[in-house]
């Protein structure tokens, strides 16, 4: 484990892993985003209400978040590769069985549950292994991998429509399931790092590990619940909840807001395309910038969050297509930058030894925000009678979340100053903050 922390490849085969993760992002998150195109077809075929049909996606998202900690603890036990391959098979089975389309409950179980589990088991390890393979270039690697989601989402829209027109929704699901089998190919590429064999450490080896204040021997074999005792993680988790409350709201209300301003369907659709494109650009640019190590990742994240909330607060001022497009562009760009860097910040906050557990736990905790946000925003919109209220709410929660980031940063800085004062280092198997520490000195 020490070997893994202090000497990740930081390049070489790591880039193969990045490409593989890029594909997995596309084959999971992007498919989830574009699934809406199947909605109307499924709803009409089963003669159900829109709300009943939308439960499919709700189940997928819920299982995705609940499965994340399970996936990450399985990673620790069975390697990332095995979990990703399993995820690919699960996702494929969900779509392929959805083809049979027996009834709505069947769709919940297949395209809802199985697909959600598959996505969870593919996405979580893919994100995680990129961080394991890199230390100095971690931010760039994470950013490139996450850009896969935007790149694929952009092309899947027209592609799914074509699939439905050629094969119907059933045939479309079946073929998409097949495409998701490629997740297994990506999984096979995710070679476990040699030092992860050390995980089956005998007790004496575990005692010699330097693991922050925590002196417990083997924290790797089991899921690390001790994380919740650490204030940095708690602060970051609260940030995650508030941020998640805000993240799902703008895409939801952008289209109705646009219609309420009198903008027609095709122009509104172009807004979504703009969003996807600037999102992609934002992710890559942020990765490149973070890689320069000019700014601490936590500071970078705080900046991007502040910029998103500013864009969101200004967006309601838009009164025509052009202004709306400009503000949407800003929002999308900074959203991309945030997504690109926030996993790297998690790695910096908890360190690589607990990263897998932290990732799973973080996703689980964050999901509560994702479930609360849209209904709360909807309530505010109904009360105000205007979709702009949703954007104000999203901007406000983001400002609050930034507050937690600042607190986290202060805490970390205080600890670093404390450890500087001590002769022997108090903690820090974290490569990145210690690198920063050296820079300060």
């Amino acid at each position, binding site marked *: 484990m020490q070997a893994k922390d202090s000497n990740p490849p930081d390049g070489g085969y790591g880039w193969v892993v990045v490409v593989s993760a890029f594909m997995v992002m596309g084959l999971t998150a992007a498919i989830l985003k574009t699934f809406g195109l199947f909605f109307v077809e499924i709803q009409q075929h089963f003669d159900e209400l829109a709300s009943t049909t939308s439960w499919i996606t709700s189940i997928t998202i819920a299982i995705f978040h609940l499965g994340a900690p399970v996936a990450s603890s399985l990673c620790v036990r069975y390697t990332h590769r095995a979990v990703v391959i399993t995820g690919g098979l699960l996702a494929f089975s969900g779509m392929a069985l959805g083809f049979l389309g027996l009834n709505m409950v069947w769709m919940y179980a297949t395209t809802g549950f199985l697909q959600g589990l598959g996505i969870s088991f593919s996405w979580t390890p893919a994100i995680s292994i990129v961080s394991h393979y890199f230390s100095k270039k971690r931010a760039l690697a994470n950013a490139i991998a996450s850009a896969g989601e935007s790149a694929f989402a952009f092309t899947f829209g027209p592609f799914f429509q074509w699939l439905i027109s050629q094969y119907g929704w059933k045939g*479309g699901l079946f073929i998409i399931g097949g495409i998701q089998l490629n997740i297994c*190919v990506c999984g096979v590429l995710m070679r476990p790092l040699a030092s992860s064999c050390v995980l089956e450490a005998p007790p004496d080896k575990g005692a010699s590990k330097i693991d922050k204040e925590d002196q417990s021997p083997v924290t790797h074999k089991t899921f690390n619940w001790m994380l919740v005792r650490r204030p940095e993680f708690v602060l970051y988790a609260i940030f995650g909840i508030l941020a998640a409350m805000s993240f799902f709201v703008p895409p939801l209300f952008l289209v109705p807001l646009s219609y309420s301003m009198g903008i027609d369907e095709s122009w509104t659709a172009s807004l979504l395309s703009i969003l996807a494109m600037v999102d992609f650009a934002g992710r890559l640019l942020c990765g490149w910038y973070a890689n320069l190590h000019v700014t601490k990742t936590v500071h970078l994240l705080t900046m991007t969050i502040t910029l998103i909330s500013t864009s969101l607060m200004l967006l309601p001022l838009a009164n025509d297509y052009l202004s709306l497009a400009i503000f949407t562009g800003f929002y999308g760009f900074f959203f991309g930058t945030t997504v690109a860097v926030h996993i790297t910040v998690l790695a910096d906050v908890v360190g690589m030894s607990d990263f897998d557990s932290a990732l799973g736990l973080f996703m689980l905790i964050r999901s509560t925000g994702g479930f609360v946000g849209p209904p709360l925003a909807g309530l505010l919109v109904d009360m105000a009678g205007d979709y702009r209220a949703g954007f104000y709410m999203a901007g406000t929660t983001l400002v609050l979340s930034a507050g937690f980031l600042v607190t986290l940063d202060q805490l970390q800085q205080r600890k670093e100053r404390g450890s500087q004062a001590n002769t022997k280092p108090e903690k820090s198997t974290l490569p990145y903050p210690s690198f920063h520490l050296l820079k300060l000195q």
Partner: protein
Amino acid sequence: GVSGTPVEKNITLGSASRIELSCRLDNKYSHFKSLQVTWKRGNETVRHINKTENSWSIQLRILDNSKLGSYSCTLKGEEEVGAMFHLQPKIEGKEKPIISYEGDTAVMTCESSGYTPIAWTWYMTNGSEQIAININDSLLADKYVINTISANVTHLKILELTKEDDGVYWCEAAFELGKSKGKLKLKVLSFMVPLKPFLAIVAEVVVLVTIIFLYEMYLKKKEKRAAEFWSLTSLSYSKSEESNGLESSSARHRKI
């Protein structure tokens, strides 16, 4: 107002009604001295009432579809301008074909926007003929189900699809004043159709996984052989150091 180019307007009537159609002239044309206004339905002239100086209108009582059609108002003066009014409710079908699979159930929907029809009838096309689907016929009752969801919406459910069910279907709404049809296309595919691209993708996945797997095994074997080589080398090196402090390289050569 009429302004030099023929104007057409579609008016939809849901039920029997009294309607007044009027042609109005913009003020800029009022200088035309000799104006002759004729209201016509097809070739028949309809008597008009000259309501004001610049407008001419007719009043119609539409009780059945004999009075429906295109009415035109023609002003002859310096310029000949006209307007056409069509009176007919319209039903929308679906432009995109509905795609379904053999053995599956297909659901086709027709909606009448705004006006409630008295009855719905479904037709299937056999060659160039349209055959009504009568669900009272016991032969057809197992295959077709017609549901009237609400007054304005009707569903045709076709069970146990076969290739013969592929084709054009019509839903006809009967109104007080006439009938209107919507067109729907049903395409029935066999499972083979999506299966082919699917199998192609599965083949691609299997091939890639195998290649990557084999390559990794090959690399591992190389590493293993290299590791064995070096461990043997260092072993002989240390041994030769014990026995003979000098010339370790020659010792290596001798041993291996």
